[in-house]
């Protein structure tokens, strides 16, 4: 009986924490930061792998295009949240815009197969990713 009760309590805890995380705008903002950082890292890795002749250009193009599309979607989601998350919302929007300012030219450079242009954008892209990861770490540390 006690084992059954423990399982029931565990599941209730999952439900409660989960519901809280689903509804909280702060949690949604965290998820958005994590996804944006993840897409930035993926695009950076795919582009540098192409620059090192490890993957076909179509893969690098797709990865960067997918990242651009996901960042646009994240931006729309965060815009809907603004007002509910204080100054963190506009700050994240700014991070997303700066990320897009690198990803869009990178996508164009890949379409031209311009290896030099792609290589020159790798470092700024890594910096934008660090910026997002840093914001995520600060949010995790906040009470």
């Amino acid at each position, binding site marked *: 009986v006690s084992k059954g009760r423990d399982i029931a309590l565990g599941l209730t*805890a999952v439900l409660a*924490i989960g519901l809280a*995380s*689903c509804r909280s705008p702060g949690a949604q903002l*965290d998820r958005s930061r994590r996804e944006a950082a993840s897409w930035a890292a*993926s695009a950076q890795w795919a582009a540098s*792998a192409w620059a090192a002749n490890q993957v*076909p250009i179509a893969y690098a193009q797709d990865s960067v295009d997918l990242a651009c599309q996901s960042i646009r979607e994240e931006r729309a989601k965060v815009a809907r949240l603004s007002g509910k998350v204080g100054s963190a919302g506009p700050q994240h929007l700014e991070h997303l815009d700066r990320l897009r300012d690198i990803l869009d030219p990178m996508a164009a450079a890949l379409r031209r197969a311009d290896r030099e242009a792609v290589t020159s954008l790798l470092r700024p892209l890594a910096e934008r990713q660090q910026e997002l990861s840093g914001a995520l770490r600060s949010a995790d540390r906040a009470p």
Partner: protein
Amino acid sequence: VKNLLKVALGIATSIGGFLEVGSISTAAQAGASYGFQLVWAVVLATVLVMFLVEMSGRLAACSGHPLAAAVRERFGFRFQVVPLVAETVLDGLVLAAEVGGVCIALHLMTGVSARWWAVPVALGAWLLLWRGTFGAIENGVSLLGLLAVVFVLAAWRLHPPWTEAARGLVPSLSAEDPARYSFLAVSILGATLSPYLFNFYSSGAVEDEWDETHLGVNRATAVLGMAFGGVMSLGILVTAALVLRPRGIQVESYHQAALMLTPVFPFWGFVLFAVVLGVACFGAVLEIALNMAYLQAQSLGWDWSENLRPKDDARFSLVYTVALALSASLMVLGVDPLRLTLLAMSLTVIVLPLIVVPFLVIMNDEKYLGEHRNGLLGNLVVLGITLLGFLLAVVAVPLQVAGGS
């Protein structure tokens, strides 16, 4: 020597057939998002699948019945309708996800849009089923699936922190997005415990004319084959945890997982990933399409065998033809294979009790199993894990849907 070869072949095909789109994507997502924290889910699912596969083979060897035929005979057709519909819908979703997996693999290798590959993939699978025999399909494609051992090799060469990885054997809650964590745990269970596996395995045993002398082969195949299969899933999880997680990459698309082998195999890693994904999913396409035909034929009392010519079991052949056509259509319409996979895997766990409970009743029936009925341990393990997975799924799936990703 001949028996040993038979056992080795059985084990090899089980290992090769273990990995498919669900196990690859859920293990990669789990490792990338939560490190080693979800190791317990892979181990739990592997233990349960060992029991269920062993039971499926024992049922076929002792009674000459595959699972669906035994359920129909024992409980009647009216009862059979519910698991039949549930499994048909699930198999259809998983089949579409597997076709999608092959299409993505071909897209990664060629750059040609995944949608364009759906029809050729379905046609290729249909041709093999139409012209091939059960043995050729089971042995050929599953043996190719052994290529997935590259993930274990990669995990080994990345020198994982074993103590930290072993801590993942103990179930724990994650503070980081717990709804997604629970959903992934459920998806891992669903990916390993796909109902098609049990009916396919028992139908294969009937096709291969197993009898009670095959019980040892069956046990070795179920335990060793599934255990090694589980090790391959863990190989993917560990590789993702060591390669993707430190880079902050979460797997929301197959493109994000495609480079996970490159730190170990710099120039072959990308191609290896695509080939393993493609081969594993193509093997699963053949098995699931065939299982859908087995399931309908055995539930409705038609003639069935992959070893018969299509004109001798026309309705059987029609089922896999229609199933492949419908699954290809879903991909042509642009359904996201990764999302479809996760949906199918989580629904599997919700539907699983409908399939497992009648199965357990039959496995305890002396009329079917004689002296080889289930023991108390087998009943408790299977029922316990199935119900636990069901409860977790009932909570986690709505949460993930509400969470909106």
